């Protein structure tokens, strides 16, 4: 509380050091941070959207090939990963809530659990990729096991979509790691800074994308 004694415009309360000079108050600053991230997420929707559009086109053109190819993905690992991501979504949302209540210890525990679940997700994903490589399920493999040529289109999309999502998980884990470190060092105010809430929004988005990737890559083609 060593901030220059410029009184806040609203009611003369002491101004938070987290408040940037170009904002009227913290409420406005928080809203600007949230809006900025939501606009970023809208661009991210379109980033993934190109791949979803490609999937849509080829699934409509070659439904049989896609159904056959999708039945070869590792549905058990994919479904376990869904459960892991939903759980990490819960812990991330609770971490945001705890930050709002200035519960530092709670934020640290919840962020650590979120990171743990994300790491297990990536581990499972890596194991799954290894199994897929063993089964020659990549489009350039000379021993690609599926007969229908459109199956290669599906498997190209599988590697790209799951890979892009895994990169997003990695970015999210890095963000959480920095926040965990900073929370431990007490280098920012949990209530006045937007960091935890912003990271929570990003993690929610990564969760969201998986909710659509999971049915398209893993649940497709099972009812035959």
């Amino acid at each position, binding site marked *: 509380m060593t901030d220059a004694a410029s009184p806040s415009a609203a009611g003369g309360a002491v101004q938070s050091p987290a408040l940037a000079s170009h904002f009227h108050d913290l409420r406005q600053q928080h809203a600007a941070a949230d*809006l900025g991230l*939501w606009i970023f997420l809208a661009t991210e929707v379109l980033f993934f959207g*190109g791949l979803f559009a490609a999937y849509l086109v080829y699934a409509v053109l070659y439904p049989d090939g896609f159904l056959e190819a999708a039945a070869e993905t590792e549905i058990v690992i994919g479904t376990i990963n869904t459960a892991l991501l939903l759980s990490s979504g819960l812990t991330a949302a609770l971490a945001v809530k*705890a930050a709002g209540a200035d*519960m530092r210890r709670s934020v640290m525990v919840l962020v650590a659990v979120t990171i743990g679940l994300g790491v297990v997700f990536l581990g499972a994903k890596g194991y799954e990729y290894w199994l897929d490589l063993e089964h020659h399920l990549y489009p350039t493999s000379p021993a690609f096991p599926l007969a229908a*040529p459109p199956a290669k289109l599906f498997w190209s999309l599988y590697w790209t979509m799951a890979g892009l999502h895994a990169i997003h998980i990695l970015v999210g884990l890095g963000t959480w790691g920095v926040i965990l470190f900073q929370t431990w060092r007490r280098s920012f105010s949990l209530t006045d800074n937007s960091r935890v809430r912003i990271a929570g929004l990003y993690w929610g988005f990564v969760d969201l994308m998986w909710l659509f990737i999971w*049915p398209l890559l893993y649940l497709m083609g099972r009812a035959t």
Partner: protein
Amino acid sequence: MSRATQSESGRNKPSHDVDRRPILPPLMPELGVFLALFALAALSVLVAFWSALGGLAILACLAIAFVMAALVMTFFMHLRSAMSVMMLAGLAGVVWLAILFGLTMADYLTRPGDLGASIQTPIEAETDPEAAN
């Protein structure tokens, strides 16, 4: 807030002492939403293996995914308590996605002949590398 002045940092804290505070924040409604999401995911798996639907099971799974996405955005991404401008920003992404899907499919679905007949398929490409359109 009388105890707030006694705390070391002097920051505006809730009235609990730091050490006596519970390790977790209130679990509701997030825990309830999480259980609902788990139930919907389980339902999605069941639907995916339900042979009566055949290849169209994916459409039912995607419908469930939309419900799950709405729950995640409302509760885990705090749209429930957010200003409407956040919802507009998110919605803008969905609107442009709909335009992307709409214009793309408007092309593919309105080409002459059978669906997919007027573009080079991988099968054609393998049997006759010269075949195009």
